[in-house]
């Protein structure tokens, strides 16, 4: 019984999501058309995959805002690799693998500063964000790199019923992440580190290696998100993803991941992501002009961040 109560409190996003879903579906007849559903699923998958990666980091108590630049960087890198030789162009799996490897190595390099030198993770991510964005712009010569591969673009166009393949990929990644976080020693260690790093260290958990792994997972997943976006646009664009940090972090907070670390989960992130995407989709459906949408988005994001933290800190005096 206690376990059930804890589960309800932990997953309170799900009833909210169902409520919002029924409300929007009831109010707008266009919402449940298969076109809108598949475009909504498609839209949430890109940032959703990156959000999934960020869950690992936030659970371990680190904060990072470089995902938007990683998304742009991986897309541009893929475009350049595909352009470089006809063989790579024909077999997009190989350049995609190389891109993810580069992302993993970048994550490894970044994690050195955070876990070994113990620099504040946010400041490091600020540097990484700026540097990778610059790298993407320089590599792409400041304009989109065309990919022009029908096979690669088809990945993001194929549907099974109304469900895009990309969403199935996203869902599979959610399940894998949930397994890693909830059922393995790695996941348990991350929760312990995020809860209290010093005590986790004293209890014999190698905080550095687990931190490094979390960083690698985050950078690889952000790279996957970049590949998905590149497939959707059929080009590697250096300026995509500038709004990523402020779209993705609220998804996590909505899902119930605490900024202070030690709380969260992949399925929670999935629902947080679905809820926020639903809200933004509804704004477009109800015809709110785009300038105003930005303002409403900003306001929603602030409300989410502020209220999430307010609830978390409700017992503190200052």
């Amino acid at each position, binding site marked *: 019984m206690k376990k059930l109560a804890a589960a309800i409190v932990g997953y309170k996003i799900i009833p909210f999501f169902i409520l919002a879903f029924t409300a929007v579906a009831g109010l707008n007849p266009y919402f449940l058309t298969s076109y809108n559903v598949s475009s909504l699923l498609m839209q949430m998958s890109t940032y959703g995959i990156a959000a999934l990666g960020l869950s690992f980091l936030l659970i371990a*108590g680190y*904060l990072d*805002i470089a995902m938007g630049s990683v998304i742009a960087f991986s897309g541009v890198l893929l475009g350049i690799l595909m352009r470089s030789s006809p063989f790579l162009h024909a077999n997009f799996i190989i350049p995609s693998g190389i891109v993810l490897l580069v992302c993993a190595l970048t994550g490894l390099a970044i994690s050195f*500063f955070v876990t070994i*030198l*113990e*620099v*504040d993770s*946010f*400041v*490091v991510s*600020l*540097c*990484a964000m*700026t*540097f990778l*964005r*610059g*790298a993407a*712009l*320089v590599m792409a010569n*400041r304009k989109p790199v065309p990919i022009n591969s029908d096979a690669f673009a088809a990945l993001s166009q194929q549907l099974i019923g109304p469900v895009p393949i990309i969403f199935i990929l996203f869902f599979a990644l959610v399940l894998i992440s949930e397994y890693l976080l909830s059922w393995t020693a790695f996941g348990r260690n991350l929760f312990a580190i995020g809860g209290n*790093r010093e005590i986790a260290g004293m209890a014999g958990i190698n905080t550095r290696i687990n931190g490094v792994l979390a960083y690698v997972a985050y950078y690889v997943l952000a790279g996957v998100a970049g590949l998905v976006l590149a497939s959707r646009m059929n080009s590697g664009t250096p300026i995509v993803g500038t*709004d990523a*940090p*402020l779209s993705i*972090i609220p998804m996590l907070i909505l899902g119930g991941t605490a*900024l*202070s670390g030690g709380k969260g989960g992949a399925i929670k992130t999935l629902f947080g992501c679905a809820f926020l995407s639903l809200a933004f989709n509804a704004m477009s459906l109800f015809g709110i002009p785009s*300038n*105003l949408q*930005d*303002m409403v*988005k*900003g*306001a929603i*994001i*602030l409300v989410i*961040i*502020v209220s999430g*933290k*307010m609830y978390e*800190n409700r017992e*503190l*005096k*200052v």
Partner: protein
Amino acid sequence: MGEGSGRARLVVFMGRNISLLFLLALILIGCAGSPVFMTAKNILNVLRQSSVTGILACGFGLVFLMGGFDLSMGAILSLSSCLVIGVMKSSGFAEGLAIALAAGLAIGAANGVLINITKGDTSETFLITLGISLVCFSISTTYTNGYNLYYDSNGLETVFASIGQSYVWDIPVPVVLFVALLAIFQVVLKTTLLGRRIYLVGGNKKASFLSGIDVAGIKTLVFSLSGLCAGIAGVVMASRTTAAGPRIGEGYEFDACIAVIAGGMKIGAGKGGMVNVLVGTAILGILTNIMNLTGTDSVFQIMIKALILLLMVSLDSAKLAPSGVPAEKA
């Protein structure tokens, strides 16, 4: 630290003054690399170019001392530049100036109030100011319809043009403004009760609260001042370039952040002051100048700045490690 061999003391001295050494090295590189570097014209140029960043860094420095980041400064700068030109065109200079500065102050105060509601630490200041910058950006886009605003400087408002373009005894007015802000903030920090409290809140929020300091009030005040600085910087920028736009200030908060960290400030350490802001702004200004003189591409410049910021923060945390004090996470 008084005891110990001369070499150990030298290491300690270098560790403490790494920013000054870095500044010195940059000046030497500049002198050696380019014959124009040490000319009066170039020095004035560096001063004028770094004054906007410097004014931002003054506000950023205050927030940083108190244990926070203000990432909304670039967006506030854009908004205030749009407001000063837009309102001036329709009503007049005084109204434009007043509204631009008031907007900066109000948005800064909003930052402070929201952060107080969350009772948050450093990571909340990141996210909330980032969120506010999104709101700010959409306000300025709505106000200008997404276009840039231009102002004909040959027109009526000579006072407005003089803010960014004229000189006081051969010194550009933006530089005078920057130095004046530095001096005022330094005096407030070092000699007044308010200044002492800002240091205390940065050093230990809980202890300051328990000893009766109005932590929330101080936070709101400091964020408002930082917003005001961004507002001033926006007016200066609009006057200097006679143009304004919703994206004009993009990336400036990053520059201010680099200046403050490069100047040797450390978050929540309760140490440092406007001298560090001055040193950091000089480092950034000279670095930019050297890169401009050597014709470095603007994107490369940003990448180099990011690497330098990373280097600086790494050195800073490595500096603490040998003394047995690990960089504690708040």
